[in-house]
């Protein structure tokens, strides 16, 4: 079906007696608030959106095809570049899939390092979301505060694995580098600092009348719609489904730590905002416990054969990334390179609900709704 909306005009003169026309507006691909190269073609009638058609693929780099010619360890840097804001979870999902297939045992210290890295990355990712979301809404200050705090996390990562954004840190069987001396103490300091800072952020933004009016009641949907559209992560939890893969299908060593899974029932942008802020708190809680229980010695890489060959067969594993459920499917034929590698990306799946949410909405709310879905284009396009 050739969906050429560029040539359709609708005459709405019958209602008002005035001849009006629908206008086609291109939001993006270069646009300050589309969180990447993402194009949204909206048909508007005045200020109301009649239809919104997302166009993506500007950042499609063929990761899945490339992976068919790379060994599993070589694919790990490619995973960093999918969801570049929270690259640790991407690393982990691939390593977890291969380890599940091969039945490998990961040493304690490596598990702890993985968990700490993933949770720090979760905090960093939510800070980016907070800063940019508020920038879209119009407040400029929080963006800089968020990035200042994220800077501390990136410095920690820099010490740990040498990179600030594309970490390439995890390997099949463990992690590549051990924590340098003093790193754990710096991380503990950061956790304490961030807990206090979070209170400041709440005072600055969360109670602001203008802010509440912008977000409350916008972009609402219910549980049935959420399950139907395969939403995951905060999008699903904001409708009342208490589901977090860290608690319900535990992986790594998440089952050792106590943390809550915040949920809300309204299903609107305000609920998602509160949930993500609460998730930062819970991540800090997990981090506190993990840093406390960090084993003082141990290997960081398990016993893994030199050439990694998962047995022939297929496997699909999923873990909780800051954006939702990220899954990795590997079809192996017993060789050192995968036969087929597929990533189930949460941003891609969560974005499907955007046209439905935008129908009949105000143009000004489009930015608020898109921001609350929290997408990263590297992940949408893979």
């Amino acid at each position, binding site marked *: 079906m050739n969906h050429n909306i560029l040539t359709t005009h609708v005459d709405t003169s019958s209602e008002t007696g005035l001849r009006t026309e629908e206008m086609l507006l291109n939001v993006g691909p270069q646009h300050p608030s589309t969180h990447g190269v993402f194009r949204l073609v909206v048909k508007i009638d005045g200020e109301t959106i009649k239809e919104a058609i997302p166009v*993506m693929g500007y950042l499609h780099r063929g990761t*899945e095809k490339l992976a068919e010619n790379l060994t599993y360890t070589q694919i790990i840097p490619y995973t960093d570049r999918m969801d570049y804001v929270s690259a640790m979870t991407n690393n982990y999902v691939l390593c977890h899939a291969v380890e599940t297939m091969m039945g490998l045992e990961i040493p304690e210290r490596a598990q702890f390092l993985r968990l700490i890295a993933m949770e720090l990355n979760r905090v960093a990712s939510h800070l980016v979301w907070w800063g940019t979301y508020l920038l879209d809404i119009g407040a400029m200050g929080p963006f800089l505060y968020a990035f200042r705090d994220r800077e501390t996390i990136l410095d920690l990562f820099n010490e740990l694995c040498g990179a600030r954004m594309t970490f390439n840190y995890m390997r099949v069987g463990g992690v590549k580098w051990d924590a340098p001396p003093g790193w754990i103490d710096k991380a503990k300091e950061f956790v304490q600092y961030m807990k206090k800072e979070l209170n400041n952020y709440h005072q600055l933004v969360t109670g602001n009348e203008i802010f509440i009016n912008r977000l409350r009641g916008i972009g609402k949907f219910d549980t049935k719609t959420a399950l139907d559209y395969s939403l995951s992560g905060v999008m699903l939890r904001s409708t009342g489904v208490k589901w977090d893969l860290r608690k319900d299908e535990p992986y790594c060593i998440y089952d050792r730590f106590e943390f809550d899974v915040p949920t809300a029932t309204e299903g609107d942008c305000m609920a998602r905002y509160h949930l993500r802020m609460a998730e930062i708190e819970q991540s800090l809680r997990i981090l506190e416990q993990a840093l406390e229980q960090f084993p003082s010695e141990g290997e960081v890489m398990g016993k893994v054969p030199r*050439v990694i060959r998962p047995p*022939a067969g297929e496997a699909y594993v*999923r873990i909780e990334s800051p954006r939702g459920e990220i899954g990795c499917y590997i079809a192996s*034929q*017993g060789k050192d390179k995968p036969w087929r590698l597929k990533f189930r990306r949460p941003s891609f799946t969560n974005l499907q609900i955007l046209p439905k949410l935008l129908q009949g909405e105000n143009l000004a709310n489009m930015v608020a709704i898109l921001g609350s879905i929290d997408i990263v284009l590297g992940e949408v396009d893979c």
Partner: protein
Amino acid sequence: MSDEKRKPTPEEKAAAAAEARAKAEALRKLREQEAQVSQEASPVEASQEPQEKASAPEAKPVSEMTPEEKAAAKKAAAAEAIAKAKAAKEAKEAAEAEAPVAEQQSEAVATSAKPVSEMTPEEKAAAKKAAAAEALAKAKAAKEAKEAAENGANSASDADAKAKAAAAAKAKAAAAAAAKAKAAREAGGDESGDDDAKAKAAAAAKAKAAAAAAAKAKAAQATGDETPAEEAPKAPSKNQPYLDKYVSRISEAFGQEVIEASYINELSKEVPTLTIQNERWHQVAQFLRDDEQLSFEYLSDLHGVDYEDRLEVYYHFYSYKNRQSLAVKVKTSREESKVASVMDLWHGANWNERETFDLLGIHFPGHKDLRRILLPDDWVGYPLRKDYVQYDEEV
């Protein structure tokens, strides 16, 4: 690889090709036995290297260059000798540890009944010990197989004995590997050894069809000795009953022939996997979603895979009501690839089906808006297919 630029003379090519082919034939026979034995053992590189190297000279008789071919053939022969020696040594070690294998395996499985998080250091040590014992057992099985292979190689007419021995060793190795996998992972195993071995054998048989049938029979015998203890993972417990339930519910509603295959996927956290007939897929999908006992309201993943003889679409469902996962595969041919769209049942399938269409060329009749999503609209070809010709060559 500057050698690639030099072209060989035709005589050199032919001579090298014949030589390589002869060597490859001899090698292949030996490889099959060795590979069957060692395939399901833990990846011991020595036994698998010759496997890989054997396939190299076989696969490219002409396209390789002259000096490389010779070198490759020489390497293969050398590797074969090394492999024989190594396998003989391993077999010796394994022989010593066979006796206590059964008890240690059950002990290992029993101790790993608790998830890793609750293990005390003693239990952890016990688990480690069990894992070590299993490794020894595996090596022993490899040795037996090697002996059988060598005997078989010496007396080529003893094909039957060879096959039997190879199958027995393979089955033992399969069982050992299965037990080790269980001990290493937190989740529990399933109780039916039959399905377990069947799944493993099914996976192996894709690559080597030679002694598959014999292996199955032997596996039934061998795994009768071990019945790994039942384990209760955090989510609802054993998955085999779930698989049975799904199979029975679907067969009741649609008949036996709708399910082409059903097994527990050991490698993927024991998810029950079904292969559904392509023609009735939409009806079955609706049943999966609407039936109260199944109630798979959540579609986690949908994508296609290109196996060279066919295309497959893989679905991963989850039921929040029952807290159970299900994986479904639907096959279709490469020439006329069509799988009924489930977009009307789960809206989340929309873009996933578009992506599968975009990258693999599988059509989804019933999809309201099937067009390319990641690639530009005027792209020609389906990149993820194995026979894809690059469209943007000049870029």
